[in-house]
């Protein structure tokens, strides 16, 4: 149960966010927004509690007006710095209060700045697990713990992917298997472990964070990779585009809107100022196997 003070601060945050959201310019929706499709948002490296995170959260709320997603996948580093109960309010519950109030469900993965206790935080819906799986519509999601990729987890990934009969398989975790940002770049140690499994069991799309930029990669061995690690932190000018880079944005915070309908996945990337910085369509049958 929330304390009266906490409830009051949440209500105030809700009112403030609602007021400021109303003042934001409308976003141009590039997604088909079909009824019955799966609509979700991808967000990484967000929990600073600073003003830019709140401003991006306002854009997320605004986006939901025209694109009613009910799922947010969190790509790790959900919280930076101290992680006291008050921080959970300031760095998560307040900025995303309108989404939480609207019943949007967040499903988190763990990053290197996250405390292990986050797996038990109710709004992250991890049910005490470092890695877990769930199904929405025709999509199987696997939320992985790339900070501790032990043999047990690797075996679990294989078992889960082998048993997944859904049309789409989407994995998300903190450390990117492919990234062309200067600060961290690709986690090749994890790539050598995980990519063979992703190929074997035909994973379609992989979302990661860690590098504080947005990058869409040219499909690697048929798999689509996105780095979306600027949900609260930004490393401006950190991209070092290579032939692997299909598109990159490192000038502002951003999040991704995603829609899966049948054999198509649509995506739109929106910045803190409400600009659409990238968009496109992925067709499942494109995957080379």
């Amino acid at each position, binding site marked *: 149960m929330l304390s009266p003070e906490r409830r009051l601060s949440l209500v105030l945050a809700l009112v403030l966010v609602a007021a400021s959201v109303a003042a934001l310019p409308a976003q141009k929706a590039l997604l088909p927004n079909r009824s019955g499709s799966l609509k979700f948002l991808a967000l990484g490296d967000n929990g600073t509690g600073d003003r830019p995170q709140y401003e991006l959260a306002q854009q997320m709320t605004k986006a939901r007006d025209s694109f009613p997603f009910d799922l947010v996948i969190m790509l790790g580093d959900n919280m930076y710095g101290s992680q006291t109960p008050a921080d959970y309010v300031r760095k998560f519950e307040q900025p995303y209060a309108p989404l939480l109030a609207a019943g949007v469900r967040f499903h988190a993965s763990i990053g*290197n700045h996250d405390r292990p206790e986050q797996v038990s935080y109710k709004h992250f819906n991890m049910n005490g697990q470092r890695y877990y799986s769930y199904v929405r519509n025709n999509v199987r999601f696997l939320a992985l713990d790339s900070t501790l990729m*032990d043999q*047990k987890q690797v075996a679990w990934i294989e078992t889960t992917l082998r048993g997944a009969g859904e049309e789409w398989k989407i994995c998300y975790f903190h450390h990117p298997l492919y990234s062309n940002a200067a600060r*961290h770049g690709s986690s090749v*140690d994890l790539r050598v472990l995980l990519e063979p499994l992703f190929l074997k069991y035909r994973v379609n799309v992989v979302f990661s964070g860690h590098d504080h930029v947005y990058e869409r990669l040219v499909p690697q061995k048929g798999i689509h990779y996105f780095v979306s690690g600027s949900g609260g932190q930004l490393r401006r000018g950190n991209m070092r585009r290579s032939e692997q880079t299909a598109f990159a944005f490192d000038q502002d915070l951003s999040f991704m809107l995603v829609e899966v309908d049948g054999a198509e996945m649509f995506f739109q990337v929106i910045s803190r100022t409400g600009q659409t910085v990238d968009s496109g369509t992925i067709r499942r049958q494109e995957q080379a196997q």
Partner: protein
Amino acid sequence: MSDDSRRIPVWRASVPRLSAFAVEHLLLLPLGAAIALVWVNLAPESYYHFTYAIAFAVNDVAMMFFFALVTKEVVEATAPGGVLHPWRRALMPVMASIGATLIPALIYSRAVDALDEPVLSIAWPVSFATDIAVSYFIARIIFQLHPMVPFLLLLAIASDVLGFLMLALFNPAADLHLVQGALIMAGAIGIAFSLRRARVKSFWTYLLAAGGLSWWAFYRSGLHPALALVPIVPFLPHAARDPGFFVDASPADKDALSQFEMWWRYPAQAALLFFGLVNAGVPFRALEAGAWGLPIAVIVGRPLGILMAVGVAVAAGLHLPQRVSWRDLVVVGFTAAIGFSIGLFFCSALLPPGQLRSETSMGVLLTLVGAPLALVAARLLHVGRFARH
């Protein structure tokens, strides 16, 4: 100036013995680590493909012989003339090792939190590790034949034993089947005991029969099988007197333990080369501030912990060894901060591949700064070879 001219001959006098020791014990692991660092930062994909393929053979099998040889040194040290004979001599260093491990572990947990990488806190047992060979080498340079050298050796052994214990008890990745392992181990020890009773002199019989079963016991129990020969080596017949720490056996020594050492000395060094290659490959871009947690913890915590623990021991009525001062203990603290081989081993046993292992391994490599710090501290505190006469 006159001080320097007096010191140089002493320094030179110690070089031949120590340089032989360095060639025998210290070169191949750093060489493997250096190759790994260059390789992983130039061609990471091929590095990981290669090292993942051989990691089990190196870490879980070949390293068994390195730990067997370390155990051999400890077993011999319990014989008359050894640093562990009589056992009471070990009391003060063992007491010191409790402070030398607990304080760094506490500092480590706080440091990684302060450095905003709290997930690294699971690696706290790595802060227990002390590289016996490197710290012995540095201690010999500083202290020459001073009683601080055996003190340091005992401290290092006790710290590592505590570390292995923590590794077994608090390894989040371990899937423990201790009862099953204990039953198989009872069989292995029974075989080793019977061989000793039957006065079997060939180390191969101990190695293949008891050692093989012991490896299986460790493996099944979920404990690290590289330690498989640790409980078997004490059963090998050995010399009545300790030849000295890190004194190599000669062909004239016919006891099973000396023969074992002569046969496995160089293969174990090769194992260390590959161990460095497999476990020290740290991509520099994977590093964040958390990599500093370990060096900070051991550089600050090791001397502090030793001073605190020895202070408690002295207050409880124990005595410092003769010619040992509190300033010596500070220098030994920096020397014992070097984790290197044991630290890398703890990393590989505790952490799966990924950023946490990379950062902790880099932290282990950074603990080598304990060597120059010990030399600087010795000079500033006028300790060992830098003492004022």
